[in-house]
Protein backbone atom coordinates (compact mmCIF):
# COMPACT_ATOMS: atom_id res chain seq x y z
CA UNK A 1 0.00 0.00 0.00
CA UNK A 2 2.65 2.39 1.09
CA UNK A 3 4.73 1.74 -1.99
CA UNK A 4 1.76 2.29 -4.24
CA UNK A 5 1.08 5.60 -2.51
CA UNK A 6 4.61 6.74 -3.10
CA UNK A 7 4.47 5.78 -6.76
CA UNK A 8 1.20 7.58 -7.21
CA UNK A 9 2.65 10.68 -5.65
CA UNK A 10 5.66 10.49 -7.92
CA UNK A 11 3.44 10.06 -10.97
CA UNK A 12 1.37 13.04 -9.91
CA UNK A 13 4.49 15.14 -9.49
CA UNK A 14 5.74 14.10 -12.93
CA UNK A 15 2.38 14.94 -14.44
CA UNK A 16 2.43 18.37 -12.81
CA UNK A 17 5.94 19.07 -14.00
CA UNK A 18 4.92 18.04 -17.49
CA UNK A 19 1.92 20.36 -17.37
CA UNK A 20 4.03 23.29 -16.21
CA UNK A 21 6.49 22.56 -18.98
CA UNK A 22 3.77 22.51 -21.61
CA UNK A 23 2.29 25.74 -20.30
CA UNK A 24 5.66 27.46 -20.29
CA UNK A 25 6.22 26.22 -23.83
CA UNK A 26 2.89 27.61 -24.95
CA UNK A 27 3.72 30.93 -23.36
CA UNK A 28 6.97 31.18 -25.27
CA UNK A 29 5.30 30.34 -28.54
CA UNK A 30 2.46 32.73 -28.04
CA UNK A 31 4.55 35.80 -27.42
CA UNK A 32 6.11 36.52 -30.80
CA UNK A 33 2.72 36.03 -32.43
CA UNK A 34 1.50 39.19 -30.76
CA UNK A 35 3.85 41.36 -32.80
CA UNK A 36 4.33 39.55 -36.09
CA UNK A 37 5.08 42.67 -38.13
CA UNK A 38 7.99 43.74 -35.90
CA UNK A 39 9.60 40.32 -35.96
CA UNK A 40 9.61 40.35 -39.71
CA UNK A 41 11.40 43.65 -40.13
CA UNK A 42 14.31 43.03 -37.74
CA UNK A 43 16.61 40.06 -37.37
CA UNK A 44 17.90 39.68 -33.81
CA UNK A 45 21.54 38.56 -33.65
CA UNK A 46 22.47 35.47 -31.64
CA UNK A 47 25.54 36.05 -29.44
CA UNK A 48 27.67 33.12 -28.22
CA UNK A 49 26.87 33.79 -24.59
CA UNK A 50 23.48 35.52 -24.43
CA UNK A 51 23.25 35.62 -20.64
CA UNK A 52 24.12 39.08 -19.35
CA UNK A 53 23.85 40.13 -15.71
CA UNK A 54 23.43 43.79 -14.80
CA UNK A 55 23.69 45.11 -11.25
CA UNK A 56 22.09 48.50 -10.93
CA UNK A 57 20.60 50.88 -8.41
CA UNK A 58 17.02 50.69 -7.25
CA UNK A 59 16.32 54.10 -8.82
CA UNK A 60 16.70 52.87 -12.41
CA UNK A 61 14.42 49.94 -11.65
CA UNK A 62 11.85 51.75 -9.49
CA UNK A 63 11.51 54.62 -11.95
CA UNK A 64 10.55 52.11 -14.65
CA UNK A 65 13.34 53.19 -17.02
CA UNK A 66 14.88 49.74 -17.33
CA UNK A 67 11.52 48.15 -18.08
CA UNK A 68 11.45 50.29 -21.23
CA UNK A 69 15.11 49.89 -22.21
CA UNK A 70 15.47 46.15 -21.56
CA UNK A 71 13.19 44.78 -24.32
CA UNK A 72 14.65 47.14 -26.93
CA UNK A 73 18.23 46.29 -25.97
CA UNK A 74 17.44 42.58 -26.07
CA UNK A 75 15.78 42.87 -29.47
CA UNK A 76 18.69 44.83 -30.92
CA UNK A 77 21.52 42.69 -29.58
CA UNK A 78 20.07 39.26 -28.79
CA UNK A 79 21.33 39.32 -25.22
CA UNK A 80 19.14 38.22 -22.36
CA UNK A 81 19.49 40.91 -19.69
CA UNK A 82 19.08 39.88 -16.06
CA UNK A 83 18.64 42.89 -13.81
CA UNK A 84 19.65 42.88 -10.16
CA UNK A 85 18.48 46.12 -8.52
CA UNK A 86 20.23 46.98 -5.24
CA UNK A 87 21.93 50.02 -3.71
CA UNK A 88 25.02 51.40 -5.44
CA UNK A 89 27.24 50.05 -2.65
CA UNK A 90 25.92 46.52 -3.03
CA UNK A 91 26.00 46.74 -6.84
CA UNK A 92 29.67 47.69 -6.82
CA UNK A 93 30.35 44.95 -4.29
CA UNK A 94 28.77 42.42 -6.69
CA UNK A 95 31.06 43.74 -9.41
CA UNK A 96 34.10 43.32 -7.18
CA UNK A 97 33.14 39.70 -6.57
CA UNK A 98 32.56 39.04 -10.26
CA UNK A 99 28.94 38.07 -9.69
CA UNK A 100 27.70 40.29 -12.51
CA UNK A 101 28.95 41.38 -15.94
CA UNK A 102 28.09 45.06 -16.05
CA UNK A 103 27.13 47.88 -13.66
CA UNK A 104 24.83 50.88 -14.07
CA UNK A 105 25.40 53.00 -10.95
CA UNK A 106 25.63 56.56 -9.71
CA UNK A 107 28.51 57.35 -7.41
CA UNK A 108 31.35 58.86 -9.39
CA UNK A 109 33.91 58.52 -6.60
CA UNK A 110 33.17 54.83 -5.98
CA UNK A 111 33.08 54.21 -9.74
CA UNK A 112 36.52 55.76 -10.22
CA UNK A 113 37.96 53.70 -7.36
CA UNK A 114 36.39 50.58 -8.85
CA UNK A 115 38.05 51.21 -12.22
CA UNK A 116 41.37 52.21 -10.62
CA UNK A 117 41.44 48.96 -8.65
CA UNK A 118 41.24 47.07 -11.94
CA UNK A 119 37.75 45.62 -11.51
CA UNK A 120 36.08 47.74 -14.15
CA UNK A 121 36.81 48.65 -17.77
CA UNK A 122 35.16 50.78 -20.45
CA UNK A 123 33.43 53.16 -18.02
CA UNK A 124 31.14 55.61 -19.79
CA UNK A 125 28.84 58.42 -18.76
CA UNK A 126 25.26 57.63 -19.68
CA UNK A 127 22.89 60.12 -18.19
CA UNK A 128 22.14 62.15 -15.12
CA UNK A 129 19.18 63.14 -13.09
CA UNK A 130 19.05 65.34 -10.05
CA UNK A 131 18.18 65.20 -6.40
CA UNK A 132 15.85 67.44 -4.51
CA UNK A 133 14.87 67.97 -0.91
CA UNK A 134 11.22 67.25 -0.22
CA UNK A 135 9.41 68.21 2.96
CA UNK A 136 6.00 68.83 4.49
CA UNK A 137 3.72 71.54 3.11
CA UNK A 138 3.92 73.63 6.33
CA UNK A 139 7.76 73.71 5.97
CA UNK A 140 8.86 73.95 9.64
CA UNK A 141 12.46 74.78 8.68
CA UNK A 142 11.35 77.62 6.39
CA UNK A 143 13.49 76.54 3.43
CA UNK A 144 10.92 76.45 0.63
CA UNK A 145 12.40 77.98 -2.50
CA UNK A 146 15.91 78.19 -1.01
CA UNK A 147 18.42 77.86 -3.87
CA UNK A 148 21.53 77.20 -1.77
CA UNK A 149 21.58 73.66 -0.42
CA UNK A 150 24.08 74.54 2.33
CA UNK A 151 21.80 77.25 3.75
CA UNK A 152 18.84 74.87 3.61
CA UNK A 153 20.64 72.08 5.45
CA UNK A 154 21.80 74.48 8.16
CA UNK A 155 18.24 75.67 8.70
CA UNK A 156 17.01 72.08 9.04
CA UNK A 157 19.59 71.52 11.76
CA UNK A 158 18.88 74.83 13.51
CA UNK A 159 15.14 74.14 13.69
CA UNK A 160 15.75 70.48 14.57
CA UNK A 161 13.26 69.53 11.85
CA UNK A 162 13.00 65.79 11.34
CA UNK A 163 15.19 64.58 8.48
CA UNK A 164 15.01 61.00 7.21
CA UNK A 165 18.25 59.59 5.80
CA UNK A 166 18.56 56.52 3.56
CA UNK A 167 21.48 55.48 5.76
CA UNK A 168 22.27 52.51 3.51
CA UNK A 169 25.49 53.55 1.80
CA UNK A 170 23.59 53.90 -1.48
CA UNK A 171 24.40 56.50 -4.12
CA UNK A 172 21.65 58.71 -2.73
CA UNK A 173 22.99 58.33 0.82
CA UNK A 174 26.49 59.19 -0.40
CA UNK A 175 25.09 62.28 -2.07
CA UNK A 176 23.36 63.25 1.17
CA UNK A 177 26.59 62.79 3.12
CA UNK A 178 28.48 64.96 0.63
CA UNK A 179 25.87 67.69 1.09
CA UNK A 180 26.25 67.55 4.90
CA UNK A 181 30.02 67.65 4.45
CA UNK A 182 29.69 70.71 2.28
CA UNK A 183 27.63 72.41 4.98
CA UNK A 184 30.22 71.37 7.58
CA UNK A 185 27.65 69.49 9.67
CA UNK A 186 27.77 66.04 11.23
CA UNK A 187 24.08 65.18 11.47
CA UNK A 188 23.12 63.54 14.72
CA UNK A 189 20.34 63.73 17.30
CA UNK A 190 16.71 62.79 17.64
CA UNK A 191 15.68 64.78 14.58
CA UNK A 192 17.98 62.75 12.29
CA UNK A 193 16.50 59.35 11.42
CA UNK A 194 18.81 56.94 9.64
CA UNK A 195 16.49 54.21 8.32
CA UNK A 196 18.63 51.99 6.11
CA UNK A 197 16.02 51.53 3.41
CA UNK A 198 15.48 51.92 -0.31
CA UNK A 199 14.26 55.20 -1.79
CA UNK A 200 10.58 54.29 -2.06
CA UNK A 201 10.38 53.09 1.56
CA UNK A 202 12.35 56.08 2.82
CA UNK A 203 9.97 58.45 1.02
CA UNK A 204 7.00 56.66 2.58
CA UNK A 205 8.52 56.99 6.05
CA UNK A 206 9.42 60.66 5.58
CA UNK A 207 5.85 61.29 4.46
CA UNK A 208 4.46 59.48 7.48
CA UNK A 209 6.73 61.46 9.84
CA UNK A 210 6.16 64.77 8.01
CA UNK A 211 9.92 65.02 7.65
CA UNK A 212 12.45 66.26 5.12
CA UNK A 213 14.42 63.88 2.95
CA UNK A 214 16.77 63.89 -0.03
CA UNK A 215 15.27 62.06 -3.00
CA UNK A 216 16.18 61.47 -6.64
CA UNK A 217 13.85 63.12 -9.12
CA UNK A 218 12.87 59.92 -10.91
CA UNK A 219 11.59 58.24 -7.75
CA UNK A 220 9.93 61.44 -6.60
CA UNK A 221 7.98 61.89 -9.83
CA UNK A 222 6.96 58.25 -9.89
CA UNK A 223 5.60 58.38 -6.32
CA UNK A 224 4.62 62.00 -5.65
CA UNK A 225 0.89 61.45 -6.22
CA UNK A 226 0.80 58.89 -3.41
CA UNK A 227 2.29 61.14 -0.74
CA UNK A 228 1.89 64.69 0.52
CA UNK A 229 5.51 65.87 0.68
CA UNK A 230 6.40 68.67 -1.74
CA UNK A 231 9.70 69.81 -3.30
CA UNK A 232 11.36 72.48 -1.17
CA UNK A 233 14.94 72.74 -2.43
CA UNK A 234 16.01 71.96 -6.00
CA UNK A 235 18.34 73.17 -8.70
CA UNK A 236 21.63 73.45 -6.72
CA UNK A 237 24.56 72.26 -8.85
CA UNK A 238 25.74 69.88 -6.13
CA UNK A 239 22.43 68.02 -6.39
CA UNK A 240 23.21 66.61 -9.84
CA UNK A 241 23.39 62.84 -10.04
CA UNK A 242 25.46 61.36 -12.89
CA UNK A 243 25.07 57.68 -13.86
CA UNK A 244 27.87 55.58 -15.33
CA UNK A 245 28.07 52.13 -16.96
CA UNK A 246 31.08 49.92 -16.30
CA UNK A 247 32.00 46.50 -17.66
CA UNK A 248 33.64 44.00 -15.30
CA UNK A 249 37.26 43.30 -16.26
CA UNK A 250 38.07 39.98 -17.89
CA UNK A 251 41.54 40.08 -16.29
CA UNK A 252 39.99 39.80 -12.83
CA UNK A 253 37.18 37.42 -13.76
CA UNK A 254 37.82 35.38 -16.92
CA UNK A 255 34.29 33.98 -16.94
CA UNK A 256 32.61 37.35 -17.12
CA UNK A 257 30.59 38.16 -20.22
CA UNK A 258 32.69 41.10 -21.43
CA UNK A 259 31.31 41.02 -25.00
CA UNK A 260 27.80 41.31 -23.62
CA UNK A 261 28.80 44.05 -21.17
CA UNK A 262 30.39 46.07 -23.98
CA UNK A 263 27.32 45.52 -26.15
CA UNK A 264 25.18 46.93 -23.34
CA UNK A 265 27.46 49.94 -22.87
CA UNK A 266 27.55 50.61 -26.62
CA UNK A 267 23.79 50.36 -26.80
CA UNK A 268 23.25 52.69 -23.85
CA UNK A 269 25.46 55.42 -25.36
CA UNK A 270 24.15 54.84 -28.90
CA UNK A 271 21.87 57.35 -30.52
CA UNK A 272 18.86 55.12 -29.99
CA UNK A 273 19.61 54.35 -26.35
CA UNK A 274 20.26 58.00 -25.54
CA UNK A 275 17.09 59.08 -27.31
CA UNK A 276 15.01 56.56 -25.38
CA UNK A 277 16.53 57.68 -22.07
CA UNK A 278 15.83 61.33 -22.87
CA UNK A 279 12.23 60.64 -23.83
CA UNK A 280 11.42 58.38 -20.93
CA UNK A 281 8.78 59.75 -18.60
CA UNK A 282 7.80 62.76 -20.69
CA UNK A 283 4.43 61.33 -21.65
CA UNK A 284 3.73 60.05 -18.15
CA UNK A 285 5.08 62.79 -15.88
CA UNK A 286 5.22 65.74 -18.24
CA UNK A 287 8.96 66.08 -17.70
CA UNK A 288 12.20 64.27 -18.38
CA UNK A 289 13.38 61.92 -15.63
CA UNK A 290 16.91 61.37 -16.95
CA UNK A 291 19.05 63.63 -19.11
CA UNK A 292 21.27 61.65 -21.54
CA UNK A 293 24.87 62.90 -21.52
CA UNK A 294 27.03 60.29 -23.29
CA UNK A 295 29.98 61.82 -25.11
Amino acid sequence: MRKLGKNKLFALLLAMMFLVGVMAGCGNQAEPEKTPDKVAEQVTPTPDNPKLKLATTTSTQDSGLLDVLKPEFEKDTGYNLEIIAVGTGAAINMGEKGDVDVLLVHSRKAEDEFVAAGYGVNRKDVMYNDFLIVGPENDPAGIKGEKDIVVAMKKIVDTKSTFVSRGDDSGTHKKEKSVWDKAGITPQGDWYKSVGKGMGDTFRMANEMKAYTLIDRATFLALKDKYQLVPVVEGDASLLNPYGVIAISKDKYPNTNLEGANAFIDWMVSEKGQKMIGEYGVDKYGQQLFVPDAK
Partner: protein
Amino acid sequence: MDVIWQGLKEGFLLIVAMDPELVHITLLSIQVSVSALLLAAIMGIPLGTVLALKEFPGRKTLLNITYTFMGLPPVLAGLLVFLFLSTSGPFGYFQLMFTPTAMIIAQVLLGFPIVCGLTARAVMAQPQEVFDTAATLGATRRQASWAIIRESRMGIIAALTTALGRLIAEVGAVMMVGGNIKGETRVLTTSIVLETRMGNDSSALAIGMVLLLIAFLIMLLILSLEKRTFTDERRIQIV
Protein backbone atom coordinates in the same frame (compact mmCIF):
# COMPACT_ATOMS: atom_id res chain seq x y z
CA MET B 1 34.93 30.93 1.92
CA ASP B 2 36.83 34.07 2.97
CA VAL B 3 33.59 35.90 3.67
CA ILE B 4 32.32 33.08 5.84
CA TRP B 5 35.51 32.92 7.90
CA GLN B 6 35.59 36.67 8.13
CA GLY B 7 31.95 36.65 9.26
CA LEU B 8 32.57 34.04 11.93
CA LYS B 9 35.60 35.91 13.20
CA GLU B 10 33.80 39.25 13.14
CA GLY B 11 30.78 37.75 14.86
CA PHE B 12 32.91 36.36 17.64
CA LEU B 13 34.70 39.69 18.08
CA LEU B 14 31.38 41.56 18.07
CA ILE B 15 29.98 39.38 20.82
CA VAL B 16 33.14 39.62 22.90
CA ALA B 17 33.47 43.39 22.42
CA MET B 18 29.84 44.06 23.45
CA ASP B 19 29.58 46.87 20.90
CA PRO B 20 27.03 49.30 22.44
CA GLU B 21 25.04 49.66 19.23
CA LEU B 22 24.81 45.90 18.81
CA VAL B 23 23.81 45.47 22.45
CA HIS B 24 20.99 47.98 21.97
CA ILE B 25 19.81 46.26 18.79
CA THR B 26 19.94 42.87 20.48
CA LEU B 27 18.03 44.00 23.56
CA LEU B 28 15.35 45.58 21.39
CA SER B 29 15.03 42.36 19.38
CA ILE B 30 14.52 40.40 22.57
CA GLN B 31 12.12 42.97 24.01
CA VAL B 32 9.93 43.04 20.89
CA SER B 33 9.79 39.32 20.18
CA VAL B 34 9.43 38.15 23.77
CA SER B 35 6.68 40.69 24.53
CA ALA B 36 4.86 39.64 21.38
CA LEU B 37 5.25 35.97 22.32
CA LEU B 38 3.89 36.55 25.83
CA LEU B 39 0.88 38.46 24.53
CA ALA B 40 0.28 35.81 21.87
CA ALA B 41 0.49 33.12 24.57
CA ILE B 42 -1.86 34.89 27.00
CA MET B 43 -4.52 35.06 24.29
CA GLY B 44 -3.62 32.03 22.20
CA ILE B 45 -3.39 29.26 24.81
CA PRO B 46 -6.86 29.81 26.39
CA LEU B 47 -8.49 30.39 23.01
CA GLY B 48 -6.83 27.34 21.47
CA THR B 49 -8.03 25.22 24.37
CA VAL B 50 -11.59 26.46 24.03
CA LEU B 51 -11.52 25.78 20.29
CA ALA B 52 -10.34 22.25 21.01
CA LEU B 53 -12.72 21.33 23.83
CA LYS B 54 -15.93 23.32 23.41
CA GLU B 55 -18.50 22.34 20.81
CA PHE B 56 -20.18 25.34 19.25
CA PRO B 57 -21.40 26.28 15.77
CA GLY B 58 -18.65 27.65 13.55
CA ARG B 59 -15.90 25.96 15.55
CA LYS B 60 -14.47 24.09 12.52
CA THR B 61 -14.46 27.28 10.46
CA LEU B 62 -12.71 29.21 13.22
CA LEU B 63 -10.08 26.47 13.48
CA ASN B 64 -9.52 26.53 9.73
CA ILE B 65 -9.16 30.29 9.76
CA THR B 66 -6.61 29.98 12.58
CA TYR B 67 -4.60 27.42 10.61
CA THR B 68 -4.69 29.64 7.54
CA PHE B 69 -3.40 32.63 9.48
CA MET B 70 -0.48 30.54 10.70
CA GLY B 71 0.86 31.17 7.21
CA LEU B 72 0.23 34.93 7.26
CA PRO B 73 3.09 36.58 5.34
CA PRO B 74 4.96 38.96 7.70
CA VAL B 75 4.97 41.76 5.13
CA LEU B 76 1.20 41.52 4.87
CA ALA B 77 0.86 41.65 8.66
CA GLY B 78 3.15 44.68 8.59
CA LEU B 79 1.07 46.36 5.91
CA LEU B 80 -2.17 45.81 7.83
CA VAL B 81 -0.71 47.27 11.01
CA PHE B 82 0.77 50.13 8.99
CA LEU B 83 -2.59 51.01 7.46
CA PHE B 84 -4.27 51.01 10.88
CA LEU B 85 -1.58 52.98 12.75
CA SER B 86 -0.61 55.41 9.99
CA THR B 87 -1.37 59.07 10.72
CA SER B 88 -4.14 58.88 8.13
CA GLY B 89 -5.39 55.52 9.49
CA PRO B 90 -8.07 54.88 12.14
CA PHE B 91 -5.55 54.75 15.02
CA GLY B 92 -3.25 57.47 13.72
CA TYR B 93 -4.09 59.61 16.75
CA PHE B 94 -1.90 57.46 19.00
CA GLN B 95 1.26 58.18 16.97
CA LEU B 96 2.48 54.60 17.21
CA MET B 97 4.06 54.26 13.77
CA PHE B 98 7.80 53.53 13.81
CA THR B 99 7.86 52.64 17.51
CA PRO B 100 8.64 49.31 19.21
CA THR B 101 4.96 49.14 20.21
CA ALA B 102 3.94 48.99 16.56
CA MET B 103 6.48 46.21 16.03
CA ILE B 104 5.04 44.22 18.94
CA ILE B 105 1.49 44.62 17.61
CA ALA B 106 2.54 43.31 14.19
CA GLN B 107 4.36 40.36 15.74
CA VAL B 108 1.40 39.46 17.95
CA LEU B 109 -0.61 39.23 14.75
CA LEU B 110 1.92 36.70 13.47
CA GLY B 111 2.45 34.76 16.70
CA PHE B 112 -1.13 34.49 17.93
CA PRO B 113 -2.46 32.13 15.20
CA ILE B 114 0.52 29.83 15.69
CA VAL B 115 0.11 29.56 19.46
CA CYS B 116 -3.67 29.26 19.17
CA GLY B 117 -3.67 26.72 16.32
CA LEU B 118 -0.92 24.47 17.69
CA THR B 119 -2.40 24.58 21.22
CA ALA B 120 -5.76 23.49 19.80
CA ARG B 121 -4.08 20.58 17.99
CA ALA B 122 -2.13 19.54 21.08
CA VAL B 123 -5.26 19.54 23.24
CA MET B 124 -7.27 17.67 20.62
CA ALA B 125 -4.57 15.02 20.43
CA GLN B 126 -5.20 13.97 24.06
CA PRO B 127 -7.01 10.63 24.34
CA GLN B 128 -10.51 10.53 25.81
CA GLU B 129 -9.09 8.46 28.72
CA VAL B 130 -7.48 11.51 30.26
CA PHE B 131 -10.85 13.15 30.67
CA ASP B 132 -12.53 9.91 31.71
CA THR B 133 -9.85 9.03 34.27
CA ALA B 134 -10.08 12.46 35.80
CA ALA B 135 -13.86 12.19 35.91
CA THR B 136 -13.67 8.76 37.54
CA LEU B 137 -11.39 10.18 40.19
CA GLY B 138 -14.16 12.59 41.04
CA ALA B 139 -13.04 15.63 39.10
CA THR B 140 -15.59 18.21 38.01
CA ARG B 141 -15.84 19.06 34.29
CA ARG B 142 -13.66 22.06 34.89
CA GLN B 143 -11.00 20.11 36.75
CA ALA B 144 -11.02 17.39 34.10
CA SER B 145 -10.50 20.00 31.38
CA TRP B 146 -7.59 21.41 33.36
CA ALA B 147 -6.10 17.92 33.52
CA ILE B 148 -6.23 17.72 29.74
CA ILE B 149 -4.46 21.06 29.37
CA ARG B 150 -1.76 19.88 31.77
CA GLU B 151 -1.32 16.73 29.76
CA SER B 152 -0.99 18.82 26.59
CA ARG B 153 1.88 20.93 27.90
CA MET B 154 4.44 19.30 25.61
CA GLY B 155 2.42 20.39 22.60
CA ILE B 156 1.83 23.85 24.04
CA ILE B 157 5.52 24.34 24.65
CA ALA B 158 6.15 23.24 21.07
CA ALA B 159 3.65 25.91 20.01
CA LEU B 160 5.57 28.54 21.98
CA THR B 161 8.96 27.54 20.54
CA THR B 162 7.56 27.52 17.00
CA ALA B 163 6.04 30.96 17.49
CA LEU B 164 9.23 32.35 18.98
CA GLY B 165 11.25 30.96 16.08
CA ARG B 166 9.00 32.78 13.67
CA LEU B 167 8.99 36.07 15.61
CA ILE B 168 12.67 36.44 16.37
CA ALA B 169 13.61 35.63 12.77
CA GLU B 170 10.91 37.74 11.18
CA VAL B 171 11.94 40.78 9.16
CA GLY B 172 9.10 41.88 6.87
CA ALA B 173 6.71 43.18 9.52
CA VAL B 174 9.24 44.89 11.82
CA MET B 175 10.90 46.50 8.82
CA MET B 176 7.63 47.99 7.66
CA VAL B 177 6.08 49.20 10.92
CA GLY B 178 9.33 49.78 12.84
CA GLY B 179 11.13 51.52 10.02
CA ASN B 180 14.62 50.22 10.92
CA ILE B 181 15.53 53.61 12.45
CA LYS B 182 19.07 53.58 13.78
CA GLY B 183 19.08 53.75 17.57
CA GLU B 184 15.28 53.53 17.79
CA THR B 185 13.66 50.62 15.99
CA ARG B 186 16.55 48.77 14.40
CA VAL B 187 16.60 45.09 15.37
CA LEU B 188 18.86 42.16 14.50
CA THR B 189 16.94 41.00 11.45
CA THR B 190 16.60 44.45 9.90
CA SER B 191 20.31 45.04 10.53
CA ILE B 192 21.11 41.87 8.60
CA VAL B 193 19.02 43.09 5.66
CA LEU B 194 20.72 46.48 5.77
CA GLU B 195 24.26 45.08 5.97
CA THR B 196 23.51 42.72 3.08
CA ARG B 197 22.16 45.57 0.98
CA MET B 198 25.30 47.56 1.68
CA GLY B 199 27.42 44.62 0.57
CA ASN B 200 28.86 44.01 4.07
CA ASP B 201 28.33 40.26 3.93
CA SER B 202 30.63 39.42 6.83
CA SER B 203 28.93 41.91 9.19
CA ALA B 204 25.58 40.45 8.15
CA LEU B 205 26.83 36.96 9.00
CA ALA B 206 28.20 38.21 12.31
CA ILE B 207 24.85 39.71 13.33
CA GLY B 208 23.19 36.51 12.17
CA MET B 209 25.34 34.60 14.65
CA VAL B 210 24.21 36.87 17.46
CA LEU B 211 20.60 36.28 16.40
CA LEU B 212 21.03 32.51 16.48
CA LEU B 213 22.70 32.67 19.87
CA ILE B 214 19.83 34.74 21.29
CA ALA B 215 17.25 32.38 19.80
CA PHE B 216 19.11 29.46 21.35
CA LEU B 217 19.10 31.08 24.81
CA ILE B 218 15.39 31.92 24.71
CA MET B 219 14.57 28.41 23.50
CA LEU B 220 16.52 26.99 26.45
CA LEU B 221 14.41 29.14 28.74
CA ILE B 222 11.13 27.96 27.22
CA LEU B 223 12.25 24.34 27.28
CA SER B 224 13.15 24.65 30.96
CA LEU B 225 9.40 25.01 31.59
CA GLU B 226 9.10 21.52 30.23
CA LYS B 227 11.82 20.02 32.38
CA ARG B 228 10.31 21.33 35.57
CA THR B 229 6.96 19.63 35.07
CA PHE B 230 7.94 16.66 33.02
CA THR B 231 9.21 13.45 34.54
CA ASP B 232 11.10 10.63 32.98
CA GLU B 233 8.42 8.05 33.50
CA ARG B 234 6.36 9.48 30.66
CA ARG B 235 9.09 9.15 28.10
CA ILE B 236 8.35 6.46 25.57
CA GLN B 237 10.40 3.35 26.25
CA ILE B 238 11.37 1.11 23.37
CA VAL B 239 11.73 -2.38 24.71
